[in-house]
């Protein structure tokens, strides 16, 4: 890498008052044609471009971004990374992702601050415990680290938790994935962009896609805000607008777009050193390196493209947090925001060929996209390069909603007799 980042380069540049740092990526004008064009310059799109270049030697490629790099859900999530998914298909994909996360800073020469401080999923009733046990066993046999903690062990691992759960949501146990944790969200987009650019990928911002035109030779012309661009292959990765772009390309998705909110507290000295998630009270929390409590919850119930949320969701989320951490009632919310998550009926992504020749789509990661970024880019690059599904992405093909082969990660499991 020409301009390697290190403590030495920082010191060297300090002598020239940091005037000599080169841009992290070029800002090229689009060429007339590319072997492949990725639509969407978020984490997943940039990762796809990077792995196409790195793993498949495709360097005559471009990423088109409507706004600014990483400005969608990459910029808006709560940065949690884990791979303790129930189904084999998901576990394989997310575990591959976690393995990539584990070397990503070095791979990209950009510190994405992947911090493996563990992810706790709490159980509050007998039903939760059964589900937890099932998931832990499945994780273990899939080679994904996952262990059960009893309430005392939970308290020891995360002293901030009130095991009483306000009386209504006592902590009866938890699963712990020690290799899970958080990463610095913006850095992931920037790191991939810089590394892809270094390999020759044109990363083009402020370039909306307006339409597609398929040609007899299999190529596709993209009508963009910066003029027509011809592409041998097109990969669509536009979380939050997937069904809009699919409509542009002439096919339909079984995808719903809904607001997902998050919020942060004011920065404080370290007070919680892991990630805590609870499905029953529906909230999750971690603390950023800057000291803010980073808090998220479930998606709003209505369909919307407005990147903000309702007040009600925040009220409920903070009530849930105060239940698990009553000492945080005196802590203050500093900022709240929303992103738009595309969710499929089975809450698993679509990584697939489309009815349009040489056009591929990667969408519907729901609330779980950030953690999947490296794995998603990796396997989507495989699909685009070869044109055919492989073991990792085949279960996530679009036609599963026709055949019924679902990878149902949400299920209707939250009931009891």
């Amino acid at each position: 890498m020409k301009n390697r980042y290190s403590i030495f380069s920082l010191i060297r540049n300090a002598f020239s008052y940091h005037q000599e740092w080169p841009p992290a990526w070029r800002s090229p004008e689009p060429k007339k044609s590319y072997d492949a064009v990725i639509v969407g310059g978020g984490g997943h799109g940039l990762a796809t471009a990077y792995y196409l270049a790195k793993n498949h030697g495709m360097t005559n490629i471009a990423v088109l971004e409507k706004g600014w790099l990483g400005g969608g859900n990459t910029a808006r999530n709560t940065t949690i990374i884990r791979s303790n998914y129930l189904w084999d298909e998901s576990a394989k994909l997310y575990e591959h992702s976690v393995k990539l996360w584990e070397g990503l800073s070095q791979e990209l020469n950009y510190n994405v601050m992947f911090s493996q401080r563990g992810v706790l999923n709490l159980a509050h009733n007998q039903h939760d415990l059964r589900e937890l046990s099932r998931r832990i066993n499945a994780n273990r046999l899939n080679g994904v680290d996952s262990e059960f903690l009893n309430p005392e062990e939970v308290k020891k691992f995360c002293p901030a938790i009130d095991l009483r759960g306000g009386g209504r949501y006592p902590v009866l146990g938890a699963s712990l994935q020690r290799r899970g944790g958080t990463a610095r969200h913006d850095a992931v987009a920037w790191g991939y962009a810089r590394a892809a650019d270094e390999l020759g990928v044109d990363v083009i911002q402020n370039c909306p896609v307006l339409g597609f035109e398929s040609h007899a030779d299999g190529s596709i012309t993209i009508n963009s805000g910066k003029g027509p661009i011809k592409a041998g292959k097109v990969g669509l990765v536009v979380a939050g607008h997937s069904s809009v772009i699919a409509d542009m390309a002439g096919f339909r998705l079984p995808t719903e777009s809904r607001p997902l909110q998050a919020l942060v507290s004011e920065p404080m000295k370290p007070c919680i050193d892991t990630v805590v998630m609870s499905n029953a009270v529906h909230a999750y929390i971690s603390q950023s390196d800057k000291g803010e409590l980073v808090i998220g919850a479930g998606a709003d119930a209505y369909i919307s493209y407005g990147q903000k949320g309702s007040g009600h969701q925040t009220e409920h989320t903070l009530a849930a947090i105060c239940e698990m951490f009553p000492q945080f009632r005196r802590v203050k919310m500093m900022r709240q925001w929303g992103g738009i998550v595309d969710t499929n009926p089975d809450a698993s992504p679509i990584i697939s060929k489309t009815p349009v020749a040489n056009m591929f789509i990667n969408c519907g990661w729901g609330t779980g996209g950030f953690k999947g970024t490296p794995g998603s880019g990796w396997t989507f690059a495989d699909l685009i390069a070869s044109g055919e599904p492989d073991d990792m992405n085949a279960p996530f093909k679009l036609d599963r909603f026709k055949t019924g082969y679902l990878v149902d990660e949400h299920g209707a499991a939250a009931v009891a007799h």
Partner: protein
Amino acid sequence: MSQKFRLESGGLINRDKPVTFSFNGHELKGYDGDTLASALIANGVHLVGRSFKYHRPRGIMSAGPEEANALLQLGEGAYTEPNARATMEELFDGLVATTSNAFPTVKYDIGEVNSLFSKIFVSGFYYKTFMWPSKAWKFYEHFIRKAAGIGKAPEEHDPDFYDKTNAFCDVLVVGGGPAGLSAALSAAATGAHVTLVDDQPRFGGSLMAQSGQEIDGKPALEWVDEAEAKLHDLDNVQVLRRATAFAYYDHNYVGIWERLTDHLPVKPEGLPRHRVHMMRAKQVIIASGAIERPLVFCDNDRPGIMLASACRTYVNRFGAKPGNKGVIFTNNDSAYATVLDLIDAGIEIKAVVDVRKDPLGPLMEKADAAGVKILTNSAVVGTSGRLHLKSVEVAELSDDGETAKSDVTEIACDFLGSSGGWNPTVHLHCQAGGKLDFDEERGAFVPAPSNRTNPNISVGSCKGAFGLADCLAQGFEAGQEAAKAAGIKFRKSGKAPTAEAVDEGNRRLLWLVPGKKPLGQSGKHFIDLQNDSTAADLQLALREGYRSIEHVKRYTTTGMATDQGKTANVNALAIVAQTLNEAIPTVGTTTYRPPYVPVTFGAIAGRDIDDLLDPARTTPMHSWHVNAGAEFEDVGQWKRAWYFPQPGEDMHAAVNREVAAMRNSVGILDATTLGKIDVKGKDAAEFLNRVYTNAWTKLGIGKCRYGLMLGEDGMVMDDGVTSRIAEDHFLMTTTTGNAAPVLGHLEDYLQTEWTDLEVYLTSVTEQWATASIAGPNARALLSELTDDIDLSNEALPFMAWTPGTVAGIPARVFRISFTGDLSYEIAVPADYGLALWQALMTAGSKYDITPYGTETMHVLRAEKGFIIVGQDTDGSITPVDLNMNWIVSKKKGDFIGKRSLDREDMSDPNRKQLVGILTDDPKEVLPEGAQLVEVVKDKPPMDMVGWVSSSYWSPNCDRSIAMALVHGGLKKMGQKLYSPQADGRVIECTITDTVFYDKEGNRQNG
């Protein structure tokens, strides 16, 4: 002398009420009416904190919510609060404050070592290093996290309580300054219901910081008092002080955060600490004022450097001197008001440094006439004083303002007030979706005119009208306009309060004040004081390709501090625009998001805490279960009796006893919690046909039928027994946890898909209490309590129901069974539930009637292979997978999920199917959730073929039994499977069918 920076007289403080408080362990004095910040200033405390990254010494820089430096730790123990802005905290007797982010003391802070490395610790440095060796990030991170953060989070359970209320009004007025008061008065005069909120303890807004203003010919504060009194007397006006409108959601839904006890030395019992009002307003008038913008100059962060308007506020409102000799640095005329007031207060103004070449403005002229030294076309190019400002360096500017001349004059001073103009407080306007226009002349973003999607009205200085006369006039007009838009009918009357119009003078927008050396080479031009981001950092970000304003913000962390860029953002984007050579509006702003100021979690949660977060539902028989010593489990929102241990029994022993007692004689279960939906209307049967997989039209009145409900995806969603009450009337039961979702699901279809059906749904779960008696003696027991029900097999066969009287109570008796034994479910009006239960217990004593809980129920039903939806299904299981093809009608028309069942993968013989599992060692009970494999490997990964959904010790079978979902399981009867456990053990087992007990099903027909 204490309070040596207190003026002899003046200010809105009560000098008859001295107040004692503690700062970093020192006892200090102030007055009632002070803020913590004003009291510190009066005591000559200038050093109040350390910055986030470089740990630079910092002092109070404002007098309002924009404060970026003075974030103090308030209170102690369970009452401690991090990051309190000293400028917004009212002083009270006994207040305890300490500085944050400094160790061991704010004066000698070892964190300041970071400053030595500030040449390396530029924006984004952490993305470029800490990557070696590859596993070391957690090590680095440990120290980074310790150094970061500001205050300390409380560690004890918060003893205070918080309140939340939902409210509505015709016109909400945000801000009690002149514009807001004028608006509230005119709206109130129309008869509209008006709510006026202000974040201060008293109204007046900016008027409190000013002197010599007159409204309607009287002193401005007198007018404010009269206005307040008038509003107070009106029944249609609600006035909230210490209340901040912090969030503006869609459809005029505004969050208001009221602080009720924070300012009180003794917190009254029963009063919440904070209360959030979630206000749905027909119309919103925003009169939130403006925040002064600091000038960005070299080393502009030393204690003693503050906003010019803050200097004026401390003098006029609090009678506190920011210092003894000061310099005012400005680009506009408004700062001269500060100059004049400070001189009046006897404070020496060494010089006014004015970047304008030919300053114009009435206030400047007054100051000039008063003999103030005014240095025009000049700038502060450097400052000195480590812990407190000692002097500033002033130089003349070049023609274009981009450099300073080398001839530098040093002026000794102990404070500096800077003014770069004013930023209208457009936060709420933008949160509501309002757009901004850029006022080139003032260098300020102002609200674009309101429109259909954003109907709120901004008035006064938050709209860019900085003159008092304009504020009053706009407020008056907006009050009437809003009332009219809210549908109030009135005759226009009255007139706007008046004040003298004042010329604002001219300005010179110099966004980046040059220093002695090129930017970044000597000293720092801070943009965001709290996050230590500088103008050089902004330029570094741009140089490195982070060009979108969002990238710049994120790369440099500008505007991401607790003040969310109230003083930083506009300066930052202007400097970005200047560097990129673009117009300021082209660069645009980052997004304004709630909350306007940080709001306590507790206030937003309100009363939804502890038991009230999700109130537990209990049955009418609950008290009996408690007295009987039952253990409970949470099922959905319900507390259900789990088992009834007798002395010395653990759960295992209790359940074994309960199970045997039921099968041998009679047991009793509280079945009240099952969801009950009353289905009525002429199309009720057709409706059931569409929501269940089986057919319902022919079900006779008085008969019951079990049904499975699928989702659109064909997967089992819920199950239960539905009984026909009349031709057009059914009673549906659902699982306990799913009652509300099922009702929602059904209503969704009725209201959106099947509008042609005449069906009415009513939840009656809580109207009926249900006791289920089961066992060979169930009939004998029941017959003792009823004389109007024929309990014979002929009159009341299995799957039938009848009305009647049980224990003198009108009842519905259902002969249905979840145990596989003879069983009656007796439902009575809920108020009689306990009486029914007691009567059954009394009459049942001769049969040794045994109460049992959900755990025993689970064992009993598992012995019979009955499923529990949500335990033996998980949203990916079809009726076919459950081997329940019999319940899917092939004849009737469409039903929910039918189409999905026809998909090709649904008939894959290798789908997961429900089977029974017997461990090879009958004493071994498989853990629920255990995974099953066909081939055991030394270590993972191993291919899993299924998982155990239910598993129990069965006393009646005298062995363990289990149910599991196994790939192709129905074709694998008798096949061996293995379950590798976490501890390394492997449990061997065999696939069997799911009915373990009474396979012929004779008992329930008994």
